[in-house]
């Protein structure tokens, strides 16, 4: 699992995730991702277009980080999920509590809030 950080403009952080968000993938990235986003209360958009697998560990990770960001005035928005990953997001109703958008433009608009 790999992670790349970029500037999406207007103080918004773009996070590109590449690989599988299965148990080993989450274990390899969760601490690092949390450390980059939570202490600064980041407004972040997460690009899922290169995530080929998402299991419940990834859902748990997104809820945990989004909740921590919310307490610090930050925001987490997901976007660009492949169809099978999007099906997992839909099945778990994650979009009821964490915004999910089709593309970076729409995600950034939500993050700007």
């Amino acid at each position, binding site marked *: 699992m790999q992670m790349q950080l970029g500037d999406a403009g207007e103080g918004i952080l773009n996070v590109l995730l590449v*690989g599988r968000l*299965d*148990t080993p993938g989450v274990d*390899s990235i969760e601490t690092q991702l949390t450390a980059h986003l939570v202490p600064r209360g980041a407004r972040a958009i997460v690009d899922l277009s290169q995530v080929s697998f998402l299991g*419940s560990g990834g859902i748990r990770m997104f809820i945990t980080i989004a909740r921590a960001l919310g307490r610090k005035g930050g925001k987490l928005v997901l976007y660009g999920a492949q*169809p099978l990953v999007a*099906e997992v997001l839909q099945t*778990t109703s994650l979009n009821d509590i964490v915004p999910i958008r089709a593309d970076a433009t729409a995600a950034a608009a939500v993050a700007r809030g």
Partner: protein
Amino acid sequence: MHRRRVEIRFLGTHEGFAQAFVELRHALDREALDAAARYDCELIFEEIVDNIVSHGAVGDRAPDVHVTLEHGSDSIVLTFDDDGVPFDPRGIPDPMPAKSLQEAKIGGFGLMLVRHAASSLEYVRTAEDRNRLTVKVRRRPDPGGTSASAPSP
């Protein structure tokens, strides 16, 4: 109907889980599966074995886990057989929809995903005191034409 059968046996530890997942993916590589069915198989394996590793140990003893994968023309059947703590996943309810992010539970999604991916789920506690969970996955049309088999880093 002709069925091809693969057996994977391992100790229910994180190391055993990782090695078994590699074997599963090699077995799936040999089948002409649509991307959705492959994703479902990997998802079910991930969630069920993670539960066994996380909660199945009896004292300090990691469970012995035996997974069988049977391929048919219209379905794939995964059977998870382990000697860990008795656990019937059919009785575990899905998490309630969260009213807010702060109130959301962070657990319980694994079995929800398994139930969604499976076309049937059967459980017995065998006479040999083992859990036996049989999960059927129906092959289905590929919704997006994307492969779910990207290599692990």
